[in-house]
């Protein structure tokens, strides 16, 4: 099993590299905390807003996250990336990895010309784009997990309440961040991917057999 210290290290190293690559325009320091019951946790904020923010419109939630600085990285297009992991007795019990794109680009409206000529922005300035919030959640709690309707590791698109696309295992920070860069900042990724440290470790598979018969996602399997 991957220890939490390695996860923390990945986040730290990749945050610096994302800043250096100029894709990340603001960031917060992750913290590693331990509490009673042998629980260890990585997150950026003292407060967990995930339940409080459940029933409010996306734009309002986004504003709240920006104001309270509840994110690991804020990308050049305003999108927020958050990574949190919780371990109990050295085992991963839950994680939440999210990518929340900005609902509106105020500065872009003020000075659009600034952004048209910069290739870093070419992915995100396309007029046809509809931004989609993306979340990878992992919950090893035996009470909530349920084959097919609540996969242990799942992908939620667009904040749809019952969208839980099964995923074969929990994602490491490296796997998640590269997935986001490759697909949503692809111009930058092509240019910069050699600069990122590669972390080739992974979490154990947790998918239920009956889920394998559905359309699902596999986390990376490394050959060496």
């Amino acid at each position, binding site marked *: 099993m991957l220890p939490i210290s390695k996860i923390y290290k990945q986040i730290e190293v990749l945050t610096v590299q994302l*800043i250096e690559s100029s894709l990340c325009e603001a960031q917060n320091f992750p913290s590693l905390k331990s509490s009673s019951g042998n629980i260890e946790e990585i997150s950026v904020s003292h407060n967990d807003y995930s339940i409080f923010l459940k029933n409010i419109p996306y734009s309002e939630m986004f504003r709240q996250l920006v104001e309270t600085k509840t994110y690991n990285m804020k990308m050049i*297009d305003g999108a927020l990336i958050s990574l949190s992991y919780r371990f109990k007795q050295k085992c991963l019990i839950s994680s939440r990895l999210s990518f929340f794109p900005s609902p509106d680009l*105020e500065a*872009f409206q003020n000075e659009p*010309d600034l952004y048209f000529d910069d290739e870093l922005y070419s992915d995100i300035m396309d007029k046809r784009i509809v931004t989609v919030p993306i979340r990878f959640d992992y919950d090893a709690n035996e009470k909530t997990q349920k084959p097919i309707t609540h996969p242990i590791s799942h992908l939620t698109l667009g904040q749809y309440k019952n969208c839980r696309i099964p995923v074969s295992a929990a994602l490491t920070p490296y796997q998640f961040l590269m997935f986001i860069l490759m697909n949503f900042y692809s111009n930058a990724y092509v240019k910069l991917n050699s600069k990122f440290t590669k972390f080739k470790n992974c979490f154990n598979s947790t998918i239920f057999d009956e889920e394998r018969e559905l359309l699902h996602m596999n986390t990376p399997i490394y050959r060496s």
Partner: protein
Amino acid sequence: MVKIITGTTNKPMASEQLKSYFHVHNELTGYLYIGYPIIGTVNGAYPIDALWVSPEKGLVIFNLIEGKDIADDYNDAQDDGANKVEAKLKGYKQLMQKRRLCVKIFVVTFAPAVTRIPDFDEDYPLCNESTLSTVIDKFSWDESEYYESLVSVIQAISTIRKGKKRRSIINPESRGAKLRALEDSIANLDNRQSRAVIETVEGVQRIRGLAGSGKTIVLALKAAYLHAQHPEWKIAVTFNTRSLKGQFRQLINTFYIEQTNEEPDWDNLQIIHAWGAPGGGERNGMYYTFCALNNIEYSDYMSARKKYGVSDPFGEICNKALSEAASIKQTYDAILIDEAQDFSPSFLLLCYEMLCHPKRLVYAYDELQNLRSQSLPSPEVIFGTSSDGTPRVNFNTTEEEKPQQDIILEKCYRNSRPALVTAHALGFGIYRDPPDGKESGLVQMFEHNSLWNDIGYEIAKGNLEDGKCVSLKRTNQSSPEFLEKHSKIDDLIVFKDFDNQNAQDTWVAEQIKYDLEHEELRPDDIIVINPNPLTTKKLVAPIRAKLYQYGIDSHTAGVDTAPDVFFANGNESVAFTGIYRAKGNEAAMVYVINAQSCYNSSFDMATIRNQLFTAITRSKAWIRVVGIGENMRGLIAEYQKVKDHNFTLDFKYPTKAQRDLMNIVNRDMSEAEKNRVSKSKGNLASLIEELENGQIYLEDLGRDQVARLRTLLQAKEE
């Protein structure tokens, strides 16, 4: 002589009479305010018709009566007014002695239209023009040592503090301590600013001032003041930068509540963006409203850009809307435009056309946002001529007792004198070495030399005339001394060069660390500016990564960050920005990095020098200009000359012909234009070479072409 400040009033006749009384009686002193102040009470707004403060008499409230009817309860109104003013003044400790207010308050009911004044109670004076003197003679005040405090209380208009930060200071010598003292000194409005707020013109009014002269706050308070006096008026406040909206709303709201104890009526007082979009409410805008009211096709940014290109799509669509409107619906009673330098004249005209008579348009702008030229043409040009050929708007020379139409806020509170002069000297290239074969190194110059006076310079030596030598300096009046006295000159401004990128980045990161750890600055007191917008994202990244490793948070201004969110209280993060996003922002400590890019260039000299000017003028207290290599050393040498000239501008004013040449050579060019010029230059060089060594002959080029070329060259020589 009483100084008269004319606000807006519902009692114009009586006000005029009162003003002329004070104009005639020039033995009296002090300040007379018409239509000011408004006092917030438990029953809402309580407007005072007129108020006179004088060292001999104390404070005199005038209740004005327009017609011939004197209400029976005029004495109640006098009691009311006096009580309300007293209650307000008692809030100021500097006017109190223990529990006693040291200012004498008198009330007079002034009814100039009433010819026969009935007998009245001694306690409740009622008079017309002929009896006013007898009443005033009886007033006296023997504690005139409180006069200065009284004046500043009345002038301060508002107790609004502009986003003052809480600082916990331990070391009284630290930068943080100096900064706190600075912030305290600029908390109140000065005399000119408060006049600009109150004075209301029945027509067009223009407010000019450098960045940091308080234009936005004056405009916001003015809007609130007009709304408080005339809640039924339709008033619009408009601007270019969307994020200003929040700032305006907050300023107006706070001030309005302070003055009236009520919330503004946002239906009548609209804070709307210049452009606007469909969708109603928050998305509304001036141009959008104009189109909707007059049934004209609306264009959004994208379609306007497609149609008219990037240079000025908004100006073009405003022109188009104006030309298509058959008869324009006049909707507003007053419109206030901030950042007018960001608009083309056609937008100002569009606003003007939307106003009912008497066209109360107030526009504020920074003459110097762009060093090249006056940023807006004269009002005669902007607003055009009426059918008889006379200009629709022109600013008459101001008579003393009339509200000023053309206001200059000459005090710059943002930049210290040395920093501002340095920014101007480098921006204009005053001490730049002349390029080969040239007489002067100037990069750009104002078309009208009088502009130098308008922006707060005085002639120290010589003549401010075309072709003459002149030495210009800033005075205490235009650049308050306290802005530079807090630190030594070599700490106010530092220029420094490095051998390579990494050395520069390391130095900046370490300085920031020191500022935060030892100098009691807060992260949001610091901004780092990279002047070249194209390299910003790449070049700020390594410094930010270093800071992150020091455990210091930082961010760059991106597409969704609004400046006010950016510098929100409690934002524990150092801001990094390119030059465009830096516009309108300020910070105590400013680092300009990679400044070598602003020294020299074969194209766009004016553009890069403007970048440097903008970057330096973001600083409220300290400025660090750093860069790499030979060009940076050139820039340092240029700064050294500014310093050697004791922060004056010493130069020979270029002639008209020299200015024209400067403007062509240094004009802004797009990438495409630059490519075209380089290509043509190359072609021409090879053509000349081929002609010279006989590879081709002039005859090959065709007689017609050669003749045309000859005409062009001759025309230029003449």
